[in-house]
């Protein structure tokens, strides 16, 4: 009996149990809680790596937990997309927990924070590893609930408002997903994620399927922050920075994108998608998101809000890649899941380090910070360059694939969108770097310590990761091309 095959279940249960164990430590007992939390997250990441290893060696497997009714199952599966999202999230989670131990040192309610931080990990793994829409939906809802205490952590008015906004938006989206789910189940009697899709357009009217598709896109689009439904994300920046970093740049928003990918390529499948003729709808929606979010980002003075709008814009790249309906474009989108996760988490960590060390939240107050926190700002600079899409850093490569994908689909207009967005990125990231390094400010004379090691270490490792992933493409590109090819399979299962 191969126990590795039970690991997907372990990936979900263990963080929950771990959260419970972490909860043993009383509020003030950081010396017990911090190591526990870090260990739990590292064990989860290690388990995820084992799953990845097993997957690469012997292929995927399924795990049927419970059958509610025929076609309605609680079921997990390791397949390429699950491996991609789960692997990215689990590994970044461990860095993020380590970072949290440093960041949260001076915050209140640390016990609650860490419990829910780890609970969210379990739910994210559930989303990643689910084998059908029902399982995904359940964990998706739980993720909203478990991240709510993190969003309102500050417990001031701003945070509570943000929390309400977050809950309402998320449940609205989940409601749309539920509608889509019911229509799908009603027509097909199954919700399974199947390579090549389960939807047969001949089983219902085209209009019905188009509505279902829109339900899925907009429903998952809430978490993916597609433009009219994005407002919760900037508001949720009231949360502590590690939460913003992980949940709102990696896990929560990427679970939305993951849902879009799943519904597009595992529920509908490429044949049905082309039959639906909704590709340009998605791409147009997302193009608007990319440009408008970048434009709004330029007007923000609070660093985290600027990063939030940048996230909205960059998530659009992923969805755009999915909406181009060709392998190269999809590869670009999938690449951007990894690349954006690495870059944005680095940027958020830097922002958090700045807040911890100097207490400054606004960009206009950062003049001369380069002398005060050189390592952090160098990391910030590198990640910014990656965001713009300038070669040595990893953001470039996804942009390159997206450009090729746009050309492949014959729509050169998306190149204009991508390049325009890159220029806007330059226009809102470079001034931060310039003012930090070259402007004279109140920091310039003050020498002081950098951020604590528990915060600096994740920043440096991640920025090194950005450079390594950016310069060693054989680490990512072949696998992601395989995943894209896997998703594009149209021959039925």
């Amino acid at each position: 009996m191969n126990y590795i095959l039970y690991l997907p279940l372990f990936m979900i249960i263990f963080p929950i149990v771990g959260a419970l164990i972490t909860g043993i430590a009383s509020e003030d007992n950081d010396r017990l809680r911090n190591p526990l939390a870090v260990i739990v997250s590292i064990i989860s990441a290690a388990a995820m790596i084992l799953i990845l290893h097993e997957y690469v060696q012997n292929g995927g497997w399924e795990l049927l937990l419970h059958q509610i009714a025929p076609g309605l199952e609680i079921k997990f599966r390791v397949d390429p997309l699950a491996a991609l999202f789960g692997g990215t999230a689990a590994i970044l989670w461990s860095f993020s927990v380590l970072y949290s131990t440093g960041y949260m040192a001076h915050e209140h309610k640390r016990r609650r924070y860490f419990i829910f931080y780890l609970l969210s990990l379990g739910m994210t793994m559930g989303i990643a590893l689910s084998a059908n829409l029902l399982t995904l939906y359940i964990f998706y809802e739980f993720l909203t609930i478990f991240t709510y205490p993190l969003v309102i952590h500050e417990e001031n008015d701003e945070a509570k408002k943000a929390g309400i906004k977050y809950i309402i938006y998320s449940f609205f989206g989940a409601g749309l997903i539920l509608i889509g789910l019911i229509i799908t189940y009603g027509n097909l009697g199954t919700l399974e994620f199947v390579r090549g899709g389960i939807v047969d357009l001949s089983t219902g009217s085209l209009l019905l399927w188009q509505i279902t598709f829109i339900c899925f896109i907009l429903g998952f689009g809430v978490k993916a922050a597609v433009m009219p439904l994005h407002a919760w994300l900037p508001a949720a920046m009231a949360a502590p920075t590690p939460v913003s970093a992980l949940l709102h740049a990696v896990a929560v928003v990427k679970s939305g994108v993951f849902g879009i990918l799943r519904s597009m390529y595992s529920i509908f499948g490429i044949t049905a998608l082309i039959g639906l003729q909704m590709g340009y709808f998605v791409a147009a929606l997302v193009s608007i998101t990319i440009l408008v979010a970048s434009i709004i980002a330029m007007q923000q003075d609070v660093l985290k809000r600027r990063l939030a709008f940048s996230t909205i814009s960059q998530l659009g790249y992923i969805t755009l890649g999915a909406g181009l309906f060709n392998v190269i474009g999809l590869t670009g989108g999938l690449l951007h899941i990894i690349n954006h996760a690495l870059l944005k988490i680095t940027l958020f960590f830097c922002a958090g380090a700045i807040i911890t060390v100097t207490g400054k939240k606004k960009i206009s107050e950062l003049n001369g910070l380069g002398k005060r926190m050189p390592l952090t700002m160098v990391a910030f600079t590198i990640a910014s360059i990656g965001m713009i899409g300038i070669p040595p850093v990893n953001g470039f490569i996804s942009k390159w694939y997206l450009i090729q994908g746009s050309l492949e689909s014959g729509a050169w207009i998306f190149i204009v969108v991508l390049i325009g967005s890159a220029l806007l990125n330059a226009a809102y990231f470079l001034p931060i770097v310039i003012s930090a390094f070259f402007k004279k400010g109140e920091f310039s004379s003050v020498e002081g310590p950098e951020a604590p090691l528990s915060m600096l270490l994740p920043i440096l490792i991640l920025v090194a990761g950005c450079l390594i992933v950016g310069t060693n493409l054989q680490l990512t590109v072949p696998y992601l091309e395989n995943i894209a090819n896997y998703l594009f399979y149209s021959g039925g299962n």
Partner: protein
Amino acid sequence: MPQELVSYLPLIAVTMPLIAFILVTCLPNLAWWRSAWSIIGSLGTLVAVGMMFPALSEGNIIVFQMPMIVTPLDLTFRVDFLSFYIAAITSFIWLMATIFAIDYMNHEHNQGRFFAFFLLTLSGTVGVPLAGDLLSLLLFFELMSLASYVLVIHTQTDEAYSAGNIYLYLGVFGGMCLLTGIGLIYFSCGSLEITQQLCMVEGVNNYLLAAGLLMFIGFGIKAGIVPLHIWLPKAHPVAPAPASALLSGIMIKAGAYGIIRTVTMIYTPDSSFMSGEYLAAGVKNLWHLVSNAGYAIIWIGIVTMLFGVCLALLQDNIKKLLACSSISQIGYIIMGIGVAAYLGYDGAMGLAGSTYHILNHAFFKSTLFLAAGAIVYLTGELNLSKLGDLRHKLPFTTIVVLIASLGIVGLPLFNGYASKTLLHHAIVEAYEHHHVYSLYIAEKLFTITSAGTVCYFLKFLFFAFWRPAPVEMPEIKQEPLMMKIGLGVLAACMLFIGFSPNLILTKFVVPTLSTFTLDTYSVNYLMKISFWHLGDIWAVAIALVLGGLFFYIAQRTNAYRLKIPFWLGADFIGSLAGRLAIIVWIIISFPFTLLQNLMRTTSQYIYKKVFTLLQSVDYRPGQKTIFRSINISNIDFDMILVLLSFSIILIVVFYIRFGIDVFRL
């Protein structure tokens, strides 16, 4: 038949400065450490580039490939003689500027940062010509753009920041243009190698046309062609002198190099297509296209030349004058490229003129900027109206400036003469090819530009060096040793180049043409060309006389007091463009702002409604409203957690015990 040799040398040339950069950043405040590593870094590059010479002079090509690093294809180096030529000029002048900078930077702040980024910029700049495919080229190009930004804003004055902003954002814009163009070429051709692309012969579609245009814009921004030059007169003067020397002498050549590669190499048919009796239709169409593009580029070059001269005549600041002169001189180079494209298969003369002028301009312009640096270092003054009589006070600098100036005006036996003569031949050849009358005018404009060049250099020499000083100057020190070495070596090189134009032409300039698709007859003609015809010297004499006349008239009428009319100045046009951009911005963003506000208002309204509704629900009898907001901190979550976790564990244990179906796919 040329061989492809695999060698680490290009990689070493690029990484030497990178290593030195890292070492200098480690200990930026240690003077001997950073000086030593700066020199070692640039010397290492020079040696690595120089060691490629034997293999390349035999007509071989050096290649090196690092699989799947950085670019979706490979990081490749491909060094033909043109690459070597540009890289050699770059690294040699860089070394001289570094030597100069060691003394010069004494009076500046933050020297560690300067030297570190000086090295980083070298890595990018030398990588541009050595790169073997367009994406690798882009990588180095961006490195050069971003790293040199730090040099531009080194003084950290407001002027430097505004210049730096234009420099940076135009640079990023150019980089994105290049990226798009490269993406289009890759999509259409499936290859990015910097060589004659086979797919061009199969027909240039709209994508490829757009790609060519975008690449021309991207490289043109760096080269400073009009109207993309607006950053140049701002950015070059504000940098410290060694950096200005390299910005003006070397880095704009990276743009010119890119244009050469794009227009006269990538968009031309391979020479194997030219062997038959009749040309295939695709080949003919391609030549036709290139020829049309060439005609446009000739005029862009002419306009750039004239515009630069006009700007330079009106400058009062030495470094600004030199920067505007750079625009004008890059116009010569662009015009030469245009002629080469216009004449297509017979375009050897234009191409040789351009490459030769790249060499000459690199030498004299960087020397002049360094000399300007020496002047500001010793006198603290750059304004022509306040300087004077430097020939007695700084005899060494005077001699160097004189050599460089005589070179730039194209006096025989000085180094600009040969290349300008070649370029003049080229434009005449272009006219005689089809007898297009407009090119006849172009040739006349060429002469006028040369006269203008003479005029503003007479102005420069007269005001700064010859006339009696208008104000009493304080006692002036002599040039420090390192400055003298840097300037002296450059001046000696220029004298050598000026005295032996044929040697340079046959040994260095003509071999650069070997990888281009050119008629062997016209290349051989270049090998035997003589520079000492009366006609050529006569052309220079006309320019000199005209220029002297201009100068005399201007001097008599006090025309130099004239300022640029404000509505022609770059600042005014820039601010106009800026205001226009803001207006456009407001118009574009207005609907979005409106939409945003609308959404915010409606959502707030909906929240209010929903929560009034929720609050009106009486949850507990006997109390009015309890639902103020969701507040989890009041709930004992630990309890819930314990229950939840245990129930989940129980379920899991139950299922593991009694059966979870696990099956492999």
